[in-house]
């Protein structure tokens, strides 16, 4: 058995760690690329959302490397994600690409349901080992999140263009290379040091922009055309509304871990704009705009894949939130036709607008 899974940002780091810890063969798909997308878009339904297309591409590319078992998360609606794995499986079947499919659905009642499904992959390895593997994976997710967050602060203040990106890559590799729970803390320390070594101008004034919206396009830099990097290089400090470890805790652990950031804080403030959950992160997207506005952010950018249902609901409500809070918002829709150049132009225009607003505000308050 050679297990694989679709990409979503740095998720491969914790997943790889978990499988290795359990001595299960794992193959990580090549990073998402133009080729991945082309392969996926060619074989997926035209109006499927972007993540599904990239998933298909991942599976086709990693098949070339001998993977035979797909492990994926699932769901029970109402957004498409809950049926993703099954549609993908049918498509692969017709392409005569054989995979064994294991879907880890978010437990409806109890985390035990999830563990039972994990068993399909872990065989008769002792539970305690599986639990330790999950904990280890979660810690790796925490570590990559921390490093990513550091990059949000550093990038807009870097003295040498591109220094943050190089450091980020090294730091993540450092965490990825840690091969046991015991060596992870030291690796994380080294990663922090790498990030801290990037020379910065601490006094440079920066704008603060939140990146909000659909989880996959938020987490997967290929899908969002490296939006965080571009914003950072325009002198913008970003905050992303969903980090990997928070999502794991909210959705896979059912919020079991307390005292960590949770999307709960967004849901609380979505009303009166959106008074019901709408699947995916639609409610959180509306709430996050409210929340970031209250935190004094200069703007928010919603990212969503073309045809994403929960986010379209949110998109149609954001202008009202923006009007009421005075915080500008912008929506970027991603599909296989979106180009990076076009996005940069739109980002620049948005950042210009935020600068003007920022100056106005300064002039009024000084």
């Amino acid at each position, binding site marked *: 058995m050679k297990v694989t899974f679709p990409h979503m940002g740095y998720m491969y780091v914790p997943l790889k760690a978990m499988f290795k810890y359990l001595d299960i063969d794992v193959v990580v798909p090549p990073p998402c690329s133009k080729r991945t997308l082309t392969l996926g878009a060619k074989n997926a*339904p*035209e*109006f*499927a*959302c972007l993540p599904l297309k990239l998933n298909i591409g991942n599976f086709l590319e990693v098949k070339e490397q001998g993977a035979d078992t797909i492990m994926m998360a*699932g769901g*029970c*609606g*109402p*957004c*498409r994600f*809950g*049926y993703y794995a*099954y*549609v993908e*499986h*049918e*498509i692969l079947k*017709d392409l005569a690409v054989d995979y064994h499919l294991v*879907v880890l659905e978010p437990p409806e009642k109890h985390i035990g349901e999830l563990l039972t499904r994990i068993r399909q992959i872990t065989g008769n390895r002792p539970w305690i080992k599986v639990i330790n593997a999950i904990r280890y994976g979660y810690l790796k997710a925490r570590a990559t999140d921390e490093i990513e967050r550091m990059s949000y602060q550093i990038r807009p203040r870097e003295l040498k263009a591109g220094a943050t990106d190089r450091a980020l890559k090294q730091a993540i590799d450092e965490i990825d290379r840690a091969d046991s729970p015991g060596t992870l803390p030291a690796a994380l320390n080294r990663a922090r040091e790498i990030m801290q070594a990037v020379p910065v101008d601490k006094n440079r004034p920066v704008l603060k922009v939140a990146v909000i919206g659909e989880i996959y396009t938020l987490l997967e830099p290929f899908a969002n055309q490296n939006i965080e990097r571009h914003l950072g290089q325009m002198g913008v400090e970003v905050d992303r509304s969903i980090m990997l470890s928070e999502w794991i805790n909210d959705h896979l652990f059912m919020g079991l871990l307390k005292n960590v950031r949770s999307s709960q804080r967004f849901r609380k403030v979505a009303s009166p*704009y*959106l*008074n*019901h*959950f*709408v*699947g*995916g992160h*639609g409610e959180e997207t509306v709430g996050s705009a409210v929340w970031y506005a209250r935190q004094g952010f200069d703007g928010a950018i919603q990212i969503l894949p*073309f*045809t*994403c*249902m*929960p986010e*379209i*609901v*949110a*998109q*149609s*409500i954001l*202008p*009202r939130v923006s009007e009421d809070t005075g915080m500008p918002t912008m929506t970027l*829709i991603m599909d296989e036709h979106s180009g990076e150049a076009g996005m940069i132009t739109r980002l620049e225009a948005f950042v210009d607008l935020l600068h003007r607003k920022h100056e106005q505000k300064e002039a009024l308050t000084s």
Partner: protein
Amino acid sequence: MPVRVGIPRALLYYYYFPMWKKFLEQLGGEVVVSGRTTKGILTRGVQRCVDEACLPIKLAFGHVQDMVDKGVDYIFLPRMVSVARREYICPKFLGFPDMVKQNIPGLPPVIDTAVNMRKSSRDINQFIWQVGAVFGKSPLQSWLAYRQARQVHNRYIKLLEQGLLPEEAMQVLAGKEAPQADNNADLTLAVIGHPYNIYDPFISMNIIGRLKKAGARVLTPDNLTEQMVNQGVSRLPKKLFWTLSRRMTGGALEYQRQGKVDGIIHVAAFACGPDSMTGELIERYIRREGKIPFMSINLDEHTGEAGVITRLEAFLDMVRWRRTAG
């Protein structure tokens, strides 16, 4: 003067109008329906709604706007979260009342009480009481009103299962004669799609009407009983959690299994999320077996009527040719 309550001729109108009408009337309301879909209604919907929304949602915006223009006292837009255990309609239905409220100015009060039977069908009582309270009725009075409405609904469903289309069934409920079955038809075709797509003659470019005129008998998933639909859908690897998609997919697969239709036409809406998944499943299952001709038509506000007519004609020719050849 009775309270005038507007119901848009959109979304789940084709499933629930007879029931809702009876319910609201029993509560003392006067029911007003938006006009039949026209270019004007669609255009106004498109103007009010985000570009990326699917066609049916844009159209529903247009119908709500039409109700605003008609000057009703209330608009009836229940938040349709779930109409069956462990199922949903679609994320957009969950957010629809909010989308409307944030984007259509000058709305009268909206009755947007949630219908949510995801956990249990008894949860409908909440809905009944809350809507009744809007009209100043007690829970008991509301429940009695709903019970009568429910009877109308059951008769409506029976009529659909006997082979009538929604408009025809509504006519029968209104006391008119049932249309005669067309004995001249030499073909039977299944038209699979969301009710608000296939039954709206404007949006669907009257696909059903055209097929009938061309000598085909038309069946839709709504002519099947719930049991049959579920039998069809049981071939899927996992329960479909969207009610409408489950009905569509189950309908298509059941018609395929029964082998009583000569062809299947799938009607999808541009940018519809669930359709992109179930359309794919239906097509793959049907093509894999390769027994029944299959065609998929995508609707959006720019779909050319000429193209659709040509494709329908070609499909009919192919189906007839296959029959004589086979």
